[in-house]
């Protein structure tokens, strides 16, 4: 019986290995939805036909997947996107010195990428803006109206991890500016390890209120609602894109970034709830954020 098992395992390994583990990076199976086949009247691809590799933070994924599909359909150029924590993907492509475009979830990670000399600085392009807001469960069961309510005993508060997550820096700055940090900080239920982790704590009922992005409420309007912050407290961030320094097709990578920042793309970003303008333009962030 064991002999039969050995033979079966060998056979399975050989057959599947021949079919599944083709060498090289261009082995993606066609995946409808994200990577549709180029349409018959696709414009001339702005490039050499090689797939573009994008390392993206999770914050931009809903719109980015749709935009990548549109780009492929329009130009017939394949776009492979891997996403994760903005810091993790930065480490991955920096270590490998591989990839074409970096799109972190917020501009502070692009600052880190520039400091590491991992992206071409002149190619940095703002795609959309992220506006902080108080996010609560749909229906606002705890009747949170302003930041001052974070000091209430019955409110479980979650903010991003300061110093590690941009939402955490912003959350702490807002609470410090409103003289609430010393009252709220001891009662913070937990810290989000990322922007999305902070959101998930609200969605899963671990928090009554978070300081998140207003786009959270727009993307999950059936579960979350946002309460605007006063303009003087809205430390707007942005989602940028840049060409990776080791890209073997920088012109094609720039063409993709130009497409993502184009007027046509703006409609799709707006559809997914991202802000196209910076409401705090002219107002500087304070507190070292």
């Amino acid at each position, binding site marked *: *019986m*064991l*002999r039969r*098992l*050995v033979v079966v*395992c*060998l056979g*399975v*390994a050989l057959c*599947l*290995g021949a*079919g*599944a*583990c*083709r*060498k*090289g*990076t261009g*082995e*993606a*199976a*066609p*995946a*409808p*939805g*994200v*990577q549709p086949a180029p349409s018959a009247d696709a414009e001339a691809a702005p490039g050499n036909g090689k797939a573009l*590799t994008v390392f993206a933070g*999770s*914050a931009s*994924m*809903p719109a980015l997947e749709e935009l990548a599909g549109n780009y492929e359909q329009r130009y017939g150029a394949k776009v*492979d*996107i*891997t*996403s*994760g924590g903005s810091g*993790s*993907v930065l480490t*991955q492509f920096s*270590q*490998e*010195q*591989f990839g074409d475009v970096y799109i972190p979830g917020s501009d502070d990670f692009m600052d880190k990428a520039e400091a590491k000399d991992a992206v071409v600085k002149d190619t940095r392009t703002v795609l959309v803006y992220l506006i902080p807001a108080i996010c609560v469960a749909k229906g606002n069961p705890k009747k949170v109206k302003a930041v001052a309510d974070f000091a209430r005993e019955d409110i479980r508060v979650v903010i991003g991890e300061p110093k590690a997550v941009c939402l955490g820096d912003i959350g702490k700055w807002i609470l410090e500016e409103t003289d609430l940090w010393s009252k709220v900080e001891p009662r913070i239920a937990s810290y989000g390890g*990322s922007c*999305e982790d902070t959101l*998930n704590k609200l*969605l*899963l009922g671990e928090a009554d209120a978070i300081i998140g992005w207003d786009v959270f409420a727009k*993307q999950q309007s059936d579960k979350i609602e946002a309460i605007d912050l006063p303009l003087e407290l809205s430390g707007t961030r942005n989602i940028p894109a840049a060409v990776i320094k080791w890209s073997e097709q920088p012109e094609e990578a720039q063409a993709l970034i130009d497409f993502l920042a184009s007027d046509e793309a703006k409609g799709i970003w707006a559809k997914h709830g991202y802000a196209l303008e910076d409401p705090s333009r002219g107002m500087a962030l304070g507190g070292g954020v």
Partner: protein
Amino acid sequence: MAWHRTQSQGTRRRRSLASMGGWATVFFLVVTVVYLLFTVGPLAGLFTYAPCSALLCPSTLEIARRALGLSLRCSLIATGIAFMIGLPAAIYLARGPSRGRVLLDSLVELPISLPPLVLGVALLLVWGRRGLFGQHLAEPISFTATAVVIAQIVVAAPFFVRIAKTSIEHVPHSLEEASRTLGAGTFQTYLRVTLPLARAGILSGIVTCWARAMSEFGATIMFAGSFPGRTQTLPTAIYMTMQHDVSASVGLSVIMLLFSAASFVVAQTCIARAAPLRR
């Protein structure tokens, strides 16, 4: 003679356990139920979070089809390779010279104690495009399906080796000696005496290895990334989807739960038939 004594002692122990009485059975049953409620019970919570809409959403099903297919292919390959290189290692650990055994055992089981993310970083540093060995490869391995398989082997193979080694150790030496006395060589003795007697443990080790490979996440996402259709396994798909759509993520989790449960039922049935317990 010694083997027969061991056999009848074992049979007597099993009979005495079964005949200890209703209270003992009740006690062990209650503790087992508590154990299951603690470890498996929380999975029921997945079904309470918008289960039907999440499961039936076309985009969720498409992600699941793609990711589950890749997970299955890579985990079966990884398990096959782990079996081929892990079984000789298990035999050596169980039957080899005792000198250095403790160190070897510790090395073999070291990956089990490390976070998979650490293993993924190590793989990237060694086999990545600029890695110690990876820089000399004609074709890059990182961020390909090959990287998925390698990550799964590194994480899951130690479980197979550990279980197989323990199983082989419990095969009485006297039987192997008798086999050699009758003229069988070393390999023949292992193939026809040792491994058949240890088959229950080896099969369990294979199932455990496969299950661990299927659920592998940390090393995979660091070494292979999460490219949909190429390196995005079901666990990484669940994590990625969690970032922007909790319902879809829960839907994928339910799909993985149902698939895993069905697979385990089939596997345990096969093991029970291949190596029936004497009761």
